[in-house]
């Protein structure tokens, strides 16, 4: 007779028993934990570990616990998944007390649907309304939720154009281009010196933003708002002009070769490695720039086209990051109050600037005088008088409408006109 061992089955039985036992044990220990958490706050955070923001937040939280004895647990999720994570846990009524996130089309449904709490009265009660910049409060006030405020506005950003003066000078360009014609000339000189001109993340969200950047050269904010919310690019002569401008930049060689394939990361590292002389990018990258690049960089707006509606080079700024308060969090409002007030304390605010290199959404006199050690952060704070700020499209473009694939295609099609591209964009708004 043949004899074979039955090890596999024995192993399986062993593992199963172990699994069940372990499961039972963990279940027990979890029950004990839940009783002691009346004095505990949980935060779902998009400030992730390994980034300046995440690391700084971890430090602050430890400090807060030391001062007040309130335990704070931070759970991190990356920006792509964090909204889903919150909504899933809300379904189970196990959502975290606070969420650190941006107010974007993905999250602008939360207040109207009651997934987060209107914090207007808390802002007033805790004396925070006067500390926060009015534009930020306006941004966070949602008309479709009875003008409730979706969260506590906290950090902001600016989004200028980065110019590597070392590379520009190498090609014989002595100043930051002031007009689009200057830009085209500069690009030609750069290419002659074998330096790729302007990097752009043509395959991802940077191209979406850049499209709105160009369109707004010829479209005023009111019209732009309707345009971004509802579409209708072909019907707007200004919009078509803006798209034509983008086409002109493409055809004049202002962008690096194969720009339509660049991801946002590839754009940034091209610039950081000196493989591009210019890039439109935001303050979130200031701290990551290598020191040599940071000191060589001048920040400014995008050059002016002829016949545009603005008089100064254009850039973006926003106040979209803040704390959402969940219904679970509202049950622990005493602890939440301590935490929020702590975060708006002057030393803490200043720490975000000097160590976290953030731009805060609070008024300058509240912030006091503080500077970051990062040269680019300092330069970024100085651009305001030099630029005109455009309308930030993020809160108007409907969730799920993505210009990027269409933008990537447009950037790859030499000669295609704005009149043609506007049709593609309008199609994105079809139901």
């Amino acid at each position, binding site marked *: 007779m043949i004899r074979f061992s039955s090890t596999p089955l024995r192993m399986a039985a062993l593992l199963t028993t172990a699994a069940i036992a372990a499961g039972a044990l963990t279940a027990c220990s979890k029950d004990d934990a839940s009783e002691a958490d009346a004095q505990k706050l949980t935060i779902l955070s998009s400030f992730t570990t390994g980034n300046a923001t995440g690391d700084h937040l971890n430090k602050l939280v430890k400090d807060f616990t030391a001062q007040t004895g309130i335990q704070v647990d931070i759970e991190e999720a990356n920006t792509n998944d964090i909204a*889903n994570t919150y*909504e*899933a846990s*809300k*379904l189970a009524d196990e959502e975290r007390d606070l969420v650190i996130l941006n107010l974007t089309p993905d999250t602008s*449904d939360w207040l109207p*649907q009651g*997934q987060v709490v209107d914090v207007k009265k808390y802002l007033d009660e805790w004396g925070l309304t006067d500390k926060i910049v009015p534009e930020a409060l306006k941004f966070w006030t949602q008309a479709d939720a009875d003008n409730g405020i979706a969260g506590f506005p906290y950090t902001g950003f600016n989004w200028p154009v980065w110019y590597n003066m070392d590379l520009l000078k190498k090609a014989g360009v002595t100043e930051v281009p002031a007009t689009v014609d200057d830009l085209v000339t500069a690009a030609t000189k750069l290419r002659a010196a074998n330096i790729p001109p302007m990097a752009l993340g*043509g*395959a*991802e969200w940077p191209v979406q933003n850049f499209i709105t950047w160009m369109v707004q050269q010829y479209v005023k904010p009111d019209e732009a708002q309707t345009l971004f919310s509802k579409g209708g690019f072909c019907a707007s002569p200004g919009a078509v002009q803006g798209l034509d401008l983008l086409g002109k930049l493409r055809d004049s060689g202002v962008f*690096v*070769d*194969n*720009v*339509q*394939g*660049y*991801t946002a990361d*590839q754009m940034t590292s*091209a610039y950081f490695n000196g*493989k591009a002389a210019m890039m439109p990018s935001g303050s979130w990258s200031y701290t990551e720039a290598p020191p040599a690049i940071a000191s060589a960089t001048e920040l400014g707006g995008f050059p002016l086209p002829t016949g545009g509606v603005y008089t100064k080079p254009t850039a973006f700024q926003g106040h979209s990051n803040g704390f959402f308060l969940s219904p679970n969090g509202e049950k622990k409002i005493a602890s939440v109050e301590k935490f929020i007030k702590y975060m708006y304390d002057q030393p803490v605010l200043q720490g975000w600037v000097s160590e976290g290199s953030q731009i805060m959404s609070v008024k300058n006199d509240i912030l006091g005088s503080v500077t970051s050690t990062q040269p680019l952060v300092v330069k970024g704070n100085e651009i305001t008088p030099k630029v005109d700020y455009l309308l930030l499209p993020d809160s108007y473009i*409907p*969730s*799920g*409408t*993505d210009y*990027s*694939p*269409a933008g*990537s*295609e447009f950037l*790859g099609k030499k000669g295609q006109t704005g009149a043609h591209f506007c049709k*593609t964009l309008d*199609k994105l708004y079809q*139901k």
Partner: protein
Amino acid sequence: MTAILDTPVVARAGGGRKRARRRDRGLILFALPSLVWYLIFTIGPLGAMFVVAFMDWAGLAAPASFNGMENVDRLLHDDRILTASKNTAVHLFVSLPVIMVGAFMLGYFLNLKLPGHRILRVIMFVPALISLSAMGMLFVAVLGPTGLVNSALDQVGLGDHATAWLADPTWAMPSLILVTIWSGLGFTGILFAARLSAIDGEIYAAAELDGANHWQKMWRVAYPICRDYFGVLTMLQYLWTLFGSAGMVLLLTRGGPGESTSTLSWLVYRFGFRSPEVGYSQTIGLVLFVLGIVGLVIIRRVFRARY
């Protein structure tokens, strides 16, 4: 529903029907745990898909309401669905035959146990080992504008042919197909090798005596024996590609440039997780469901086992 395999009709000498039925009753017990378990977690989602497909539902916590045939109507008039269907068809009809035929030959090759075959087996499994996100990162680096492929072209003097492969309307879909084949070939090859190893060497020896070479041994001897299995793996690869392309598309091209790599699976993801239209996303899921069944029927026909 379709059966994916024919039950092999094994002639039992002197068995008798009664004994067969009695055996079967005992056998059911063996299969029950698996079946019940599986049903609990499948019927729900399947049923839900059929229900939600006819609803207007924005997001996980948004209010939902029925809207009859509106979603279906929308689907039938939606150009994007048409484009996605074409892309899905191209994706499948190119990658599936290449993978299945290539993998079978690869499995046969590995089974020859030539020197180095152990290492090759390990290497062949690599695409299956690394997670989807790691593969995405890799191919973005390989096929990016300043990636490996373009650098290589530069070095051999073909720099003019360098393009942004994943953002080029002509090359985006071929790139996707290539990645699909790359990741499916080795893995399926290993699966074939495992099955082929159970074929008695004496059968091959007999064919050799008749003067058969490897090609003939592969297709005239091994294939008929494994025809059933070949069908199963084809079905698996078909379904995996049909339903699973969204992952790769998300990581590599997000449907672009334009709509050149937008597949039906991608649209299900897009409407389910990117724009808040879960109802419509499930409607497209229904289309995939139907296509899945149609494909299964066809595959079964093609691989009908002959005894």
